[in-house]
């Protein structure tokens, strides 16, 4: 009987697939709460995945790669911020442009850096979330598998709590929420809608890119054009399902992570269900969840509406 071991494996797998989604969904939450729709998550994750894999390969440090990815994501999403906040562009179209750019830049640079191959060399992994003495203790037991939980996963879940506190308990959070609901109110009280939205969009890019980096560093251990494969959009679905709150996003990401883990478990072992059909599962689930819950969730009022001072 290896039931504890199996459960531990499913648990670890679920957390592993949840982590990138969670980073991206949290990024999406920040941006959308401030009133900027972020359909660019996919492109940002791709850039994050590329930067993460290649920087950690060349510096031989997963941490450096992970952080570098965040900054690369913030840099790319700056374009989205400029377009949506300063120039009041259509946020859907701008997001689409970022998605194209993200994909293009990543593959172009991968080919440049890895001698024309669209697949990056394998990168070092992020360390386990558990300190040495705990992991040594676990070795040899049924629960050994949970040693594989990455430190970044721990960080992502801590971030959920932090964001919740930041949004609903601090003055900056209060201002961000107000910007997403009623930007003119913030403006009339002397706050800067521009600064708040720029800050939020940049944070969103940073986090989404961390999600991408986790995917390429710790899950697939290299970057290829299909590393992200729509996860940015799944994260978007997760944040809608999570009703635009950090904690809600966490639960829905766990659900999607679990679905994905089921795919690998069921498909990998006996294959009595086709792998391709199983891989559809997360996407079908997203649609099902949206049909069941979208009517009841409330988006911030000003999402997708460019803010202009002109009151007339």
């Amino acid at each position: 009987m290896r039931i504890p071991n199996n459960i531990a494996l499913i648990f670890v797998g679920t957390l592993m697939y949840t982590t990138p989604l969670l980073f991206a969904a949290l990024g999406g939450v920040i941006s959308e709460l401030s009133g900027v729709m972020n359909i660019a998550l996919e492109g940002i994750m791709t850039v994050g995945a590329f930067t993460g894999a290649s920087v950690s390969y060349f510096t031989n440090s997963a941490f450096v790669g992970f952080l570098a990815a965040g900054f690369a994501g913030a840099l790319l999403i700056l374009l989205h911020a400029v377009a949506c906040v300063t120039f009041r562009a259509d946020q859907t179209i701008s997001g689409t442009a970022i998605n194209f750019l993200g994909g293009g830049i990543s593959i172009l640079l991968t080919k440049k850096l890895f001698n024309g191959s669209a697949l990056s060399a394998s990168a070092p992994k992020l360390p386990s979330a558990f300190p040495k003495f705990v992991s040594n203790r676990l070795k040899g037991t049924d629960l050994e598998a949970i040693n594989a939980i990455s430190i970044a996963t721990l960080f992502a879940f801590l971030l959920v709590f932090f964001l919740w506190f930041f949004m609903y308990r601090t003055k900056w959070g209060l201002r961000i929420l107000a910007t997403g609901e009623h930007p003119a109110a913030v403006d009339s009280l002397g706050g800067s809608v521009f600064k708040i939205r720029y800050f939020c969009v940049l944070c969103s890019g940073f986090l989404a890119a961390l999600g991408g980096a986790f995917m390429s560093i710790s899950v697939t251990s290299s970057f290829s054009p299909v590393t992200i494969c729509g996860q940015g959009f799944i994260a978007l679905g997760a944040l809608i399902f999570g009703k635009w709150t950090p904690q809600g996003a966490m639960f829905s990401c766990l659900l999607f992570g679990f679905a994905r883990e089921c795919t690998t478990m069921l498909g990998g072992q006996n294959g009595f269900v086709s792998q391709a059909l199983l891989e559809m599962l997360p996407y079908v689930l997203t649609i099902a969840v949206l049909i069941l819950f979208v009517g009841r969730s409330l988006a911030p009022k000003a999402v997708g509406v460019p803010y202009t001072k002109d009151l007339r």
Partner: protein
Amino acid sequence: MNKFNLKKKLVPFFFALLGGFFVGGLCLICCGYDPINSYLAMLEGIFAKPKYMVQVIVKSAPLILTGLSVALAFKSGLFNIGAEGQYMVGLLVAALMGIKLSLPPVIHFLALFIAAVIAAGVWGAVAGFLKAKFGINEVVISIMLNWIAFYLHKYIFAQPWLLVRNLDASLPIRETARISIFQKFKETAQWKGMIAKNPLFSDIFKTDLNIGIFVALLAVILIHYFLNKTTRGFEFKTMGINHETASFVGMNVKRNTVLSMFIAGAISGAAGAIQITGVSPYRMTNLAGFEGYGNEGIYIALVANCSPIGCLFSGLFFSAIKCGSSLMQIKVGTPREIIKIITGVIIFFIAVPFLHKLILNYLQKKKENKLENTK
């Protein structure tokens, strides 16, 4: 007046294209490639041989169609990011019917074409229906549908009755369903004689010349007529600009949302059908990722400002740089992904409505300053 309007509309797109190539060039420099040689190679890949030019036209057909699909949806206020999935469904249905059915020529193609178009239309209508019924953002749904279509393709492709193992491709579709021009002719003795005499002809006939471009042209004309002359087109446009007014004056916005997505899906499906029946090897291949025809439709529609006639030209344009980029990669070694960056920048310029005005104003001021200085 009219001429002036056209000019006013064209200027921003011209700027967007210019901006795209400029930024693309900067990226190339940063990556250590030579932008001028790369772009020259790209031009060469478009115009150097008649074969290339024909190739551009052949490859433009699916692009024009998916562009048209996205444009029609845009006109009715919907963002059809699902063209990719609809294209794939069209291709899948056409392939299955092309392989499994045995019918006389022409009828065979017509049958599979109609089936593909309807299937893809229904695929698109799902997103429209969910939007109309539950108010779910059609973008998220469409993207999920894209991935579902992708894995559906993988699933069907892996079926043993379809797959040719050693080729890693499906069985070819029957010849009765193919739409290539001069296919039979190529194998005759007359043809071999002509090759000897006229290398130009042989060059052109080496391409996958097919009737797809005529299908695309017909679709452009039909959609143009539909949007500008018919009552339903009028309803689509009204709904696209202001859906509250549309329902206020008694138009059925929900039904039109589904219908619009159905038509958009159908057009994308047509692109898939002509692709599999018109281009060798006439087989389904194992896909590593999306083929991208649907996603390319998005920027074709955007650059065309959602006008059907515009889609014709922007489809040709993007087909050209796509074809050109192949030669560029072979000849100069510049990765062809650069065109993704170029198009990304182009969309970005189009998304930011007055960026070109800012640049123009800036240039104007600089010019004035210079004039003052010289005085």
